[in-house]
């Protein structure tokens, strides 16, 4: 992969940590400081303050609760702001900023191909992803909420806190936390082809953003990964480069699955003939 592109992606990932995760959590702390002056927020700034999971279930199952929580902490709107941005710009947050998705993906590059589970050609992640989203939303009514107990952001926050000296964050592990960490980081992370298995199958925030992207991509004025058919020589490099398995071969051509594409632009960089670009216009030219 192009080193400059990779460097930009790693820098974006570090920016994501700085913005959302303690001990930095700059976005969270700046908002908290604004609100604290109004007596609203009195809690430590970490990734939980800008939760991307619970607000999705509240929005569907208990809109009044969502409104009440947002009035206390507007950062609960983050996931919906990201969804709207995805409509116009594609899910750039997932592809560039989200540390929970990017860290396993980048570490995955160091794992030998033979050790990785390869389902790229065998499985379309979209049905599983949206089945999970439906289950995630309905789970509080049908079994038990999985917003917090199976939260990979939470696990990453704990690990980052420990790395920066707060070992207390790793003091308690529940069974669900152990399962989440093992699946997110190892099985569906560094040991799956592309390193984005958790994102593909089990991230409700990513699924929501891609729903909006799927609709937005139909419109000519929105940004998206676009395919220029005449320039393609069917070499397949973009297919192999895509960490989310969004690009597939389709009879002397390729297709970009908007339900999983996170606009990381690895495919754009991998293509030697400029057949893919992140720009405004039609999906296929």
């Amino acid at each position, binding site marked *: 992969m192009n080193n400059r592109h990779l460097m930009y992606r790693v820098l974006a990932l570090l920016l994501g940590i700085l913005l959302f995760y303690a001990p930095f959590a700059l976005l969270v702390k700046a908002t908290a400081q604004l609100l604290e002056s109004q007596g609203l927020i009195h809690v430590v700034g970490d990734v939980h303050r800008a939760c991307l999971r619970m607000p999705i279930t509240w929005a569907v199952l208990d809109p009044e609760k969502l409104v009440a929580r947002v009035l206390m902490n507007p950062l609960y709107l983050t996931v919906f702001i990201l969804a709207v941005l995805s409509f116009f710009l594609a899910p750039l947050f997932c592809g560039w900023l989200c540390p929970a998705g990017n860290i396993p993906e980048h570490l995955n590059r160091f794992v030998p191909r033979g050790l990785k589970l390869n389902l790229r050609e065998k499985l379309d992640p979209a049905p599983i992803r949206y089945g999970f989203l439906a289950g995630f939303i309905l789970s509080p009514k049908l079994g038990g909420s999985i917003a917090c107990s199976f939260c990979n952001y939470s696990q990453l926050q704990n690990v980052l806190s420990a790395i920066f000296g707060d070992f207390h964050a790793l003091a308690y592990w529940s069974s669900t936390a*152990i399962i989440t960490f093992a699946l997110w980081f190892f099985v569906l992370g560094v040991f799956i082809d592309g390193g984005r298995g958790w994102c593909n199958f089990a991230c409700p925030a990513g699924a929501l953003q891609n729903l909006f992207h799927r609709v937005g991509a139909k419109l000519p004025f929105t940004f998206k990964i676009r395919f220029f058919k005449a320039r393609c020589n069917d070499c397949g490099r973009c297919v192999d480069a895509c960490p989310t398995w969004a690009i597939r071969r389709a009879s002397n051509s390729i297709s970009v699955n908007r339900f999983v594409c996170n606009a990381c632009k690895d495919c754009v960089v991998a293509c030697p003939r400029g057949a893919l670009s992140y720009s405004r216009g039609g999906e296929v030219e």
Partner: protein
Amino acid sequence: MAAGYYRGSLRKAESVHFGLNFPAQEGKGKKVVVLYYDEQGILKKLLQPGVVKIGSHRIKNVGSRSYVVRLELVNVPEGVEVTWETNQLAWDDATKTLRRPLRPGERFGMGWIFHIPEELRGKPVIYDGGVRVIDAETGEQLAFLPIKIVNRGEAG
């Protein structure tokens, strides 16, 4: 759904959450919080059996005035280490006091991580105590919630 049911099955075994209102209202809040230690999930039993968590996202002031609140965990057996865990900026861990006044209707969260030594893990009743909410300015008890950690198989 399966993940939700699995999580639900462990609700009273690894990490129990409760709500606690203060000042205590007559006839209300008399329930006991119980954690069934021997019903932990297999992964927990294998990897970190001696550490359980009890906590509340909602220790709420239902009174008509503000309180500066101190918390006390009573009757912790010798050998059991308890880590206090909160996201409150104004929490003073040395005095176990929330330094800012909690206004009527306001709430805060607190968790207690119990590190249970091996010799106590098989007892029918591992912990029988509770959390006391105290007005830090007057010393008056505002509420008390009994908490137990038991082995259901032996305690019946």
